[in-house]
């Protein structure tokens, strides 16, 4: 059954889904949604994602949006293919789910605002708001302090192996290590080592260059 991923190459949420497809070694067709032409707000695309955001996913009759729902579907459905991104044991899976929520509820809000201010605004010729950067760096620091403690006890966030809990961080982290916010990661040895490790995974390199 052919898989189609609708998205934009620079979109962090699209990259999240691409990372998962690459880790699982799943073939798919990438359909470029041209956001500069407002294609994501067209009636056609809104029928795929009523919120008018990328990515959107299609496999036969199944249509999904929200990158973290897409990755979780792929990780469970293709559990036997490619890298193991979830854990079978229910209690270990639950702990993994905790850290998936942490990325979603704590890391994402602060980091996505920083990516918008420091990366996307520059792409669109807009001016960075330094007050927003300062406020969100403070929030991100509090989150990374918790990560530093967690990663001193556990090799990866969700447990002893790389899972979706780590993968979901890749897009925002990739952008932020190219900005002054990198210093927040560098200042925390366990976080820094973990970031370097996951950003150098072959599947991630493939997802960002293909």
């Amino acid at each position, binding site marked *: 059954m052919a898989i189609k991923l609708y998205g934009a190459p620079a979109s962090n949420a699209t990259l999240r889904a691409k990372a998962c497809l690459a880790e699982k070694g799943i073939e798919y067709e990438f359909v470029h949604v041209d956001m500069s032409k407002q294609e994501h707000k067209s009636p056609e695309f809104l029928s795929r994602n*009523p919120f008018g955001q990328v990515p959107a996913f299609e496999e036969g009759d199944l249509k999904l949006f929200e990158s973290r*729902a897409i990755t979780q579907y792929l990780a469970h459905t293709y559990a036997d293919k490619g890298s193991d991104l979830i854990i079978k044991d229910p*209690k270990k899976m639950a702990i993994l789910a905790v850290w998936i929520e942490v990325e979603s509820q704590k890391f994402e809000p602060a980091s996505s605002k920083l990516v918008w201010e420091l990366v996307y605004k520059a792409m669109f010729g807009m001016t960075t708001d330094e007050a927003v950067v300062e406020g969100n760096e403070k929030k991100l620091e509090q989150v990374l302090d918790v990560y530093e403690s967690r990663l001193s006890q556990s090799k990866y966030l969700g447990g002893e192996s790389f899972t979706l809990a780590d993968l979901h961080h890749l897009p925002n982290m990739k952008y932020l290590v190219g900005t002054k916010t990198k210093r927040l990661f560098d200042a925390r040895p366990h976080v820094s080592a973990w970031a370097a490790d996951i950003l150098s995974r072959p599947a991630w390199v493939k997802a960002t260059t293909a």
Partner: protein
Amino acid sequence: MVAKVYGPIRSACSQRVLACFFEFGVDFELIHVDLDSQEHKQPDFLQKQPFGQVPVVEDGDFRLFESRAIIRYYATKYSGKNRNLYGTTLEEKAIVDQWLEVEAHHFNDMVYNIVVQKLIIPKMGGKTDFDLVQSCVKKLEQVLDIYEQRLSKTRYLAGEWFTLADLSHLPGTRYLMNECGLDHLVRERKKVNMWWDDISTRPAWEKVMELFNGGK
């Protein structure tokens, strides 16, 4: 083994977990955490939840935080008791996850800001930012318009059955409609209104409300 839930009954995230526990008939003990005296920021509590937030669930040796991770675990564990709450196939589960993501990101972000500005900040002696409230209400209206469209095609958010995706909306929507005085956002939308009347009269939610109305 009785699961311990640490959190005050007024906490929306704690209510999310309790609604799930009542749906599955999970025995629990609610242990009050006094947010007003900063109990959740003390070292003892931070051992349980490093972000200093409620709820935390302890089930014997097993500890979990993040309410949406907690409900997913218990819905999976007790799927035999209610097969439809988290989908019966991988595809159904994916659709439930999709609408849980929508609740967490599109819906909750707005409702959370509105509750903080209208209820929590004044209580702490600060001033409500009415411009922020206005802008959140505008965004929430757009989200609820999308829910209206969706619910004119399906009975519940993820399909024809009540699932975790609907359950996850209960605490925030109730705060929005009651203490925040924004019930018109639901009442003005025919399908959203019907959906709310349906999910908010479920016995499990009514048991959460009994605790809320009788408790601290």
